[in-house]
């Protein structure tokens, strides 16, 4: 079963070809990784999928629904959550409030119901709190829910971002460099967490540089270089692929 299909996607920015004819598909319930050297076009592709960039050509489908012309916030509603490479938390707000942001697209309380303080409104607020707390438990941060997000240590800030993304109940969770800046222990915890997320049936797409981690945790790897997909398959096979080795280490003469 395919959850995400990327079909012949190309992107040009200001006359420069950033992505050329990229195609691959991701299976439901697996951990996928998108890798490639610096400047390979990974982040551009990520931004195309999440609706921040509009591809010049090609199609992207999430669970059968086309993502062409869908704005970033609608993409989340359709079941695709993301985290940011450089962590974008609402630093001035509490940890709990940050995670509650993830519930926004799964709730519908309006201005009117908030003003009338209706029962349905109170119940929804309660359930948003409850769901957010559950995700904080999931990432192991429940005890810090009232802390200001900006005051947390780096590793915890990453977790808040994961919990916030998970709270939007994604079918596909895209993590942009989740291991960057983590200690060895935190990385081991990340791997365990990724497996637990997969265990719930959520598909994961990682953009990562940490090869040991990728090799250990991925079911499937997509490799890009110069804006093109150069390989795609199981980690072990991808690592032996001469084109991949060349992309990373350079040509052997």
């Amino acid at each position, binding site marked *: 079963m395919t959850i995400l299909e990327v079909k012949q996607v190309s992107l040009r*920015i*200001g006359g420069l070809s950033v992505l050329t004819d990229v195609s691959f598909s991701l299976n439901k319930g697996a951990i996928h990784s998108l890798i490639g050297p610096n400047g390979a076009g990974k982040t551009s592709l990520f*931004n195309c999928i999440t609706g*921040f960039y509009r591809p010049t050509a090609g199609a992207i489908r999430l669970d059968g629904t086309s993502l062409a012309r869908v704005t970033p916030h609608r993409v989340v509603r359709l079941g695709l959550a993301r985290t940011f490479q450089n962590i974008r938390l609402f630093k001035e707000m509490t940890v709990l409030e940050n995670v509650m942001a993830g519930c926004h697209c799964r709730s519908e309380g309006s201005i009117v119901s908030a003003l009338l303080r209706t029962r349905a409104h109170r119940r929804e607020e309660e359930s948003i709190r409850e769901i957010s707390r559950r995700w904080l438990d999931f990432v192991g941060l429940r005890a810090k829910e009232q802390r200001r997000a900006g005051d947390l240590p780096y590793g915890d800030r990453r977790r808040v971002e994961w919990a916030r993304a998970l709270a939007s109940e994604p079918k596909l969770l895209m993590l942009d460099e989740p291991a960057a800046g983590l200690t060895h222990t935190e990385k081991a915890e990340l791997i365990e967490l990724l497996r637990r997320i997969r265990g719930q049936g959520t598909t994961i797409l990682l953009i990562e540089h940490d090869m040991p981690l990728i090799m250990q945790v991925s079911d499937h790897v997509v490799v890009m270089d110069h804006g093109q997909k150069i390989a795609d398959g199981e980690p072990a096979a991808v690592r032996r692929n001469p084109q991949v080795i060349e992309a990373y280490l350079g040509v052997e003469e």
Partner: protein
Amino acid sequence: MGFFLQQLMNGLILGSFYALIALGYTMVFGVLKLLNFAHGDIYMVGGFVGLLILKLGSSWLGSGWLGVVVALFGSAALVGALGMLIERVAYRPLRQAPRLSVLITALAASMVLNSAVLALTGGRPVAFPADLGFVGYDLGPIHISVIQMALLVSTLILMLVLELFVSRTQYGRAMRAVSYDMVASRLMGIDVSQIVSLTFFLGSALAAIGGVFAGSYYGSLHFFMGFIMGLKAFTAAVIGGIGSIPGAMLGGLTLGLLETFGSSIPFIGSEWRDVAVFGALIFFLVLKPTGILGKTMVERI
């Protein structure tokens, strides 16, 4: 025909005021991506500083051409320095702050200048006693005074000099480099703070010259004259394409002409003139924020 030429003249003169002030908005915006709310007030202060110099110097220089020219240069230098000071005191400490705080601070800086002049003048218009006469030439049905010509010619010269400075000198290039890529500029050995100060100096000096011109041309100054002028000059900068120096000139002249000719159309009339100007501002910001000559800015995440 005579009416047309007269209106053309009026439009060009009004437009050159707008252009002189629009340049400051555009340069500061280019370098710092900051909307300098205080800029209109700098123009107003420039007029008053010029007035002060004119009065102080009148016993030696008189209040004719010599006195006005000295007032122009003196005001440009002093008010240029004032612009640098404002950047130093009010904007530089906030370079990493949220944009909302920076905007409110800029607003506060504008109020300080404005209310200081209010306090000094008692809120009354002050006469600008330049004595330039009405000597001029009759071109067919219209009369063009020497001061009108002087105003147009010196505005054109100033803009030409600025354009040459920006395109031909190392500091001018550095200004463009900083507005394009601040980090790369530092790696070239450019002291970004120094360039920002320079930008504020030049922008404020040009606005001050505009202020002294306005005093000499209209004969009086008022503490509130910077507000509406600032808003319109900003409109001119936006129409031309904010960040672009030729755009500021083009936008200023366009707006000046539109305003003058627009208010002579019977059904529009002068009372709707400002509505049309602000309408144009909104139209451009919403539909063509890059203006006529501006470059597209790709906002990245």
